[in-house]
């Protein structure tokens, strides 16, 4: 059976098949190479969205309202893509970062206050990320006094010791770990078809008689609106726009490579939402279905999965949370110090030496250190910080989005590449919707903060 001729014949068959595959792939080889060369920023920026605060919100949404929140994912994907694509395009056409453009067009003072706001919002987010590390490692029974400083050291070292290219590769490979949520969702054994059905607008499915019995109608209550707004608020964050545009500039993407970058952003937005889908389906089919509607944090969500979906589902959920928190905890301080230094004219970039870019590295280190210290000693204020960062996020996002829309429509900057008319409509409508929803979150968080004075 396994004689020589046989093996050779087999081998020939395989090479022939490989040859056939290659002959299909070859004409696209250049295009694939181009895509791989510029891929990254879009994928990274959208995946970092699914950070500690995000996962908590998605888990909460799934536990509280089950599948009925799923319909919002498609409009959210569109809004995310539209808002990010504008920044990527500005980066490719002007070759300048968003903070540079704001500085040049709106002056020093506006930029300064914007940067102060970004510093505070992102500091809040960094604290939330380290809280996420704490939540996740707690479910494995590790003390936060071990896990959180270790995490801080790890993210600090990755960036300080690595080169830009290497760091990006590390980040891109981390994106794969998000798949743990997909596996975790499979362990939960949800009704996939019914979940998919809920991706369609409820008003539509409600009127199709054949599917009607399977569709749950969303309860349009105040609590539901807040959760919905929370989903948007954690998904579209101001810092993303700065990060993406700077990364596109750094990658030297020009108008000719731009198509590949746009695909990168599109793939990123969709993949981000696919992960959200699996998280919500996972918690919906377990927690919601078994009447567990309130969870304190993302870690308790993971623990609650254990009796319902098994220890693997629980462990994978926690692993995903740890990964997401670490990922965001390394990107946020980096992007924050980068953007602030760029805008105010300090040397920046991880390819610079420490002595060349002192303020950049000092800011970066301080952000991480404050995040770690906060979780170690002030961890009981975690929920307060999370709420505050959402409030600030809600106030900052409209400002940033309006700057983006003004700049992207300027002919003297963008030439022929301003927003097309239809695109502009979609962009303005989703901006207004995002603003309304984030203000709702900001308002409800603010009310909660007022009604429960810090305990």
């Amino acid at each position, binding site marked *: 059976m396994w004689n020589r001729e046989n093996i050779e014949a087999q081998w020939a068959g395989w090479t022939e098949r490989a040859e056939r595959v290659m002959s299909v792939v070859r004409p696209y080889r250049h295009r694939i190479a181009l895509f791989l060369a510029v891929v990254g920023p879009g994928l990274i920026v959208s995946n970092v969205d699914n950070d500690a605060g995000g996962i908590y919100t998605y888990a909460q949404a799934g536990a509280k309202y089950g599948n009925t929140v799923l319909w919002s994912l498609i409009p959210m994907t569109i809004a995310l893509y539209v808002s990010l694509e504008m920044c990527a395009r500005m980066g490719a056409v002007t070759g300048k970062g968003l903070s540079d453009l704001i500085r040049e067009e709106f002056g*020093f003072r506006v930029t300064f206050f914007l940067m102060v706001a970004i510093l505070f919002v992102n500091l809040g987010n960094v604290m939330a990320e380290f809280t996420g590390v704490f939540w996740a490692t707690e479910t494995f029974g590790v003390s936060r006094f071990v896990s959180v400083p270790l995490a801080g050291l790890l993210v600090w070292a990755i960036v300080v010791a690595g080169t830009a290219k290497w760091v990006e590769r590390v980040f891109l490979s981390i994106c794969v770990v998000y798949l743990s949520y997909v596996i975790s969702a499979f362990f939960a054994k949800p009704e996939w078809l019914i979940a998919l059905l809920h991706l369609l607008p409820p008003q539509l499915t409600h009127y199709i008689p054949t599917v009607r019995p399977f569709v749950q109608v969303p309860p349009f209550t105040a609590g539901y609106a807040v959760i919905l707004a929370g989903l948007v608020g954690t998904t579209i964050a101001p810092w993303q726009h700065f990060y993406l545009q700077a990364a596109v500039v750094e990658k*030297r993407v*020009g108008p000719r490579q731009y198509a590949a970058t746009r695909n990168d952003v599109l793939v990123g937005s969709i993949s981000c939402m696919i992960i959200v889908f699996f998280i919500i389906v996972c918690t919906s089919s377990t927690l919601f279905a078994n009447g567990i509607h309130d969870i304190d944090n993302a870690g308790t969500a993971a623990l609650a999965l254990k009796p319902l979906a098994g220890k693997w589902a629980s462990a994978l959920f926690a692993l995903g949370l740890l990964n997401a928190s670490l990922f965001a905890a390394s990107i946020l301080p980096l992007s924050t110090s980068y953007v602030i230094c760029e805008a105010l004219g300090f040397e920046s970039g991880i390819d610079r030496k420490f002595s060349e870019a002192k303020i950049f590295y000092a800011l970066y280190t301080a952000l991480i250190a404050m995040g770690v210290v906060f979780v170690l000693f002030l961890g009981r204020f975690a929920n307060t910080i999370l709420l505050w960062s959402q409030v600030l996020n809600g106030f900052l996002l409209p400002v940033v989005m309006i700057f983006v829309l003004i700049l992207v429509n300027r002919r003297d900057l963008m030439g022929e590449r301003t927003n097309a008319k239809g695109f502009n409509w979609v962009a303005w409508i989703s901006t207004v919707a995002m603003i309304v929803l984030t203000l709702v979150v900001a308002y409800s968080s603010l009310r909660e903060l007022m009604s429960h004075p810090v305990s």
Partner: protein
Amino acid sequence: MLYATELMGAKTYDAQGNYVGKIREFFIEPAEQPNRIAHYLLSRGSFQPLVARHDQVASVAPGNVRLNVNERSLEPYEPNEAWLAVQKDLLDQQIIDTSGRKVVRVNDVDLAEQRTNGSIELRVTQVDVGLPGAVRRLFQGIAPQKFIRRVQGQFPPRSIRWEFVNLVEPDPLRRLKLRITHEKLEDLHPADLAEIIEDLSAAERQGIIASLDEETAAEVLAELDARLTSQIVEKLDPEKAADILEEMAPDAAADLLADLPKETSEELLEEMPGHEAAEVRELLEFDPSTAGGMMNTEFVFVGEDSTREDVLKWMREQDLNLDQLDTIVLLDRAAQYSGTVPVARLLLAEPEQTLAELKIEPLLSLPPDASEREVFEIFDKYNLRTLTIVDEDKRPIGVITVDDVVSKLLK
């Protein structure tokens, strides 16, 4: 010393002491004087803004400017492309600091008063790129002058003298009107200039490369990131692009053309002189990841029987590119590759020695289809500075130098 930020918004009075308007902008007219504030823009609410000329200003102080003429002798404001606006064109914009060799952003502009018969002229002395300027920009108009001066004194000043400031203006017409030249940039080392250009925006890069002489432009492009290089060349006027390519080493030109779309690279090759285009075309045939793709076809070769004296005499008469004069390739009587002689050995040799006696052992070469891995290994093993590439008939067709290897390794 005065600062542009402090003077913005200053109330202006005419010779009779009547209020005229507020200062909104300063204009330099580079065609007349490179550093003099030639015109002051005065805004008057809903009335038409006026312009005061430099010889109409009697005194200048923060918050208060006096003219030596009547309001009626001021002219209404008309936008002028040949005027450089301090606020719009300088503040918050990027400039090139030619002494520090980097791109910086302007926070403020420092002005010095100069008394000329009956009027005060303001001269730009330096641009402020440090924290004191940032403090002024932040607090001007919302905090008292004293407070600002005290806070700014806490920070170390960082400024660039006006002579070393090189503006970047992408629009060639405006560049001409504003007398912006890039002569100062041509004195920088191409590697420094390349780093500066990488920090600028796409349009600004384009503007600078287009205005450099071909030789400098070629040297800068060779130092730039490959993707930037192709973006720039693609948008250049084809004739200019071909001239620049001609100045480049054929291997660098081939690498560049390989990154461009087929039609563009064909068009540029058509524009180039025949023999240079042919050389580049040959190089384009090789896969960039092989020895053939890395090699340079311009090299010095002589017969191995010639003496040191003959070779030196011959070389002096040739117009040789000094970059290639590191190693000499030897040919035997059958015109086949027979060895290499580093120029250092030639220096120390006796006049009558033949080059065959000077060549290094062992005889090394690679075929053009050797992989880059093989090239790296042979350079590493024998500590080479130059390696000869030979075809099937043992004829040398090009050389790889150590700098080609270094730049390949860094990618």
